[in-house]
């Protein structure tokens, strides 16, 4: 109770903030020539000192990408993207890899400070001291494209956990990367994932060994910094038999005048009895009131429950970006495996979001739960697009889907597009959907008790999203509730 109260109080304290992460850090970049070609792909691979097989994989993806067309089935409208007018690699200049935080560019550390990332060892340690099992966070900080600092490595190493930039894993654990990368999202998967496969620059790699419960939340903060640099992050998380990990991903981006492309790929793999909980708070710059300058976010996130009794849980709070195209999915291959998708998507002004999930039931007695909360304000468009597919051998498969939409004002839109394909008679699929407006009664009631109209909206919307927000780890819940308030500012008269 006390923790909840405190959370709410902190939320209240910041609801008046505008987009506070709109600043730009001036750091020398080591940038690839503008545009996309085989040379760009080779440049990136060479910079990363990659083995031959990876370069070949990238080139295969690039050649395949040339034959593909950008998907246009989403309920999204945006000007054509000129893929030749972008930089595909930009790394902060560091002579050698930093051995400790002291070696990290102080300018960079200041940026993190502004973002409130607890990167400094002392700050993090302060949170850990006392109870040995008290929750703590390890941060693999991705600055532009290169991960420059990793904390808590030692504690993780003791357990045999690997948590490092994927470029490092390519060097130190090539067998794992080679085995799993592209095994969930193949290089030929879709236009944006294929582009990512060709030019991905960095991202996180996590391996949890058999029977290990990761003692802390693992966390990556993304940040687009250098001008016009598309972000092509690639994350791979493997939970071996009987292991557990909770992973947090959060992003902020500086205010910018030109649209920025972001096409990440996240692959998760769980073996028997393993569990991955993946939480995202997405706060990319959404553009101004007219939608100018926001981030384009085309993400492919997919998890494979390969083992029996395994579980993958996606929780996302999407408040930023001009365009969001994102469908975190689960392939429920192992018998009794479980997939979950909890989502809050907030769109304001001219933001557009087409997001949802895919649950593919292959194994027996597989279960999936989908809870989606879409909030639309201003002139925004918010679409839930979900697929529940039951394969012939998935006896006893069950799905429950709940899609709720909340409209603020009368110029926005909410759309629900559920696809259900069942090829097994014993499957049970339930779908519930509601659309509501914030009622005038609720607004007046809150205002009569002293809340301003904006605080009232924030409170009502936080209530509407509660089922999803409560799935977030405590560390993220506060930030998420803040974002709900901030992102809806100006949405009521």
């Amino acid at each position: 109770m006390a923790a909840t109260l405190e959370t709410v109080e902190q939320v209240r304290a910041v609801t008046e903030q505008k987009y506070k992460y709109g600043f730009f850090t001036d750091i020398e970049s080591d940038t690839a020539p503008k545009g996309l070609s085989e040379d760009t792909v080779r440049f990136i691979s060479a910079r990363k000192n990659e083995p031959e097989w990876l370069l070949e994989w990238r080139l295969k993806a690039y050649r395949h990408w040339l034959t593909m067309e950008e998907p246009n089935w989403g309920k999204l409208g945006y000007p054509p993207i000129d893929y030749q007018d972008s930089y595909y690699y930009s790394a902060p200049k560091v002579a050698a890899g930093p051995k400790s935080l002291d070696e990290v560019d102080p300018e960079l550390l200041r940026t993190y400070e502004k973002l409130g990332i607890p990167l400094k060892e002392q700050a993090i340690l302060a949170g850990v001291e006392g109870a040995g099992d008290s929750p703590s966070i390890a941060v693999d900080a991705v600055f532009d494209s290169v991960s420059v600092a990793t904390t808590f490595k030692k504690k993780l190493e003791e357990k045999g956990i690997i948590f490092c930039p994927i470029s490092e894993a390519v060097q130190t654990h090539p067998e794992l990367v080679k085995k799993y990368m592209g095994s969930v999202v193949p290089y030929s998967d879709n236009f944006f994932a294929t582009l990512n496969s060709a030019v991905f620059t960095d991202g996180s790699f996590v391996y949890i060994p058999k029977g290990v419960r990761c003692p802390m939340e693992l966390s990556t903060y993304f940040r687009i910094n250098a001008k016009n640099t598309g972000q092509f992050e690639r994350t791979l998380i493997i939970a071996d038999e009987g292991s557990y990990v909770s992973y947090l991903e959060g992003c902020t981006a500086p205010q910018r005048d030109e649209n920025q492309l972001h096409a990440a790929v996240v692959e998760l793999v769980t073996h028997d009895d393993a569990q991955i909980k993946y939480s995202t708070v997405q706060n990319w710059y959404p553009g101004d009131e007219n939608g100018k300058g926001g981030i384009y976010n085309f993400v492919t996130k997919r998890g494979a429950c390969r083992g029996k009794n395994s579980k993958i849980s996606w929780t996302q709070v999407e408040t930023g970006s001009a365009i969001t195209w994102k469908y975190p999915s689960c392939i429920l291959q192992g018998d009794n495996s479980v997939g979950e998708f909890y989502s809050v998507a907030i769109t304001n002004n001219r933001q557009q979001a087409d997001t949802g999930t895919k649950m593919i039931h292959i194994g027996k007695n597989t279960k999936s739960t989908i809870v989606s909360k879409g909030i639309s304000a201003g002139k925004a468009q918010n679409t839930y697009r979900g697929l529940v597919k039951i394969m012939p051998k998935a006896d006893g498969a069950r799905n429950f889907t709940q899609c709720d939409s909340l409209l603020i004002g009368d110029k926005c839109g909410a759309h629900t597009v559920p696809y259900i394909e069942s090829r097994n008679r014993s499957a049970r699929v339930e779908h519930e959907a509601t659309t509501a407006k914030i009622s005038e009664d609720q607004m007046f009631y809150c205002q009569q008790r002293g809340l301003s109209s904006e605080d009232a909206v924030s409170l009502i919307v936080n209530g509407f999203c509660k089922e999803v927000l409560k799935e977030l780890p405590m560390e993220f819940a506060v930030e998420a509730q803040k974002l709900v308030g901030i992102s809806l500012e100006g949405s009521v008269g």
Partner: protein
Amino acid sequence: MLEIRNLHVNVVGKPILKGLDLTVNAGEVHAIMGPNGAGKSTLGYTLAGRDGYEVTEGSVTYRGKDLLELEPDERAASGVFLAFQYPVEIPGVSNTTFLKSALNSIRKAHGEKELDAMQFLKLIRAKTKELGMTDEMLKRAVNVGFSGGEKKRNEVLQMAVLDPAFCVLDETDSGLDIDALRIVADGVNALRGPDRAILVITHYQRLLDYIVPDKVHVLANGRIARTGDKSLALELEEKGYAEFGVDEAA
């Protein structure tokens, strides 16, 4: 404390209040009685500043200020409280969160320091105890799944926590059985004091057995038709509102 002069209010273009005059002093409890459709709830909503209640003529002066100039949340901050006839449900928001947000908004408006979680918890526990309520209600979402009696008790609790100077109780007795009515009335009585004025809007005399008013007004056809003391309520109970030219059954 409150002075209403020649108040005319339209709802959806239709005149509901047609020249209402009323003066309420600090420390007093006034009852507004009247037949259905006389404009009782309209008066409550107008004082609280609800959208759609259009003042076409007249004035409302509250503690020397023009009340009609203020936004609903500013009125709340200046001490105007409306206990709703139909309290509104807010799914997913706990009573505690709601009340703490409300109280801190009002404190902020007064330039006072906001209460932290512990201070608030202490306050709300004291208030629930004073009102003879359990704090089980605090954890539940605002009015969601509450019985009629619980909703009204919740209104009284909010009133006690927000500590307003001028309270309007809109048909607080409707839908309550006798036990619930007594609990709610006890709560309201506990809030009576020399610095606070209360306006009780009710259709029936029954509530006034428990909340004894200093003055009773009959609101009919959009104006105060008669003013008296407690005995007026008893008289109305007996004779109905027929003499005010309104058919009671309407």
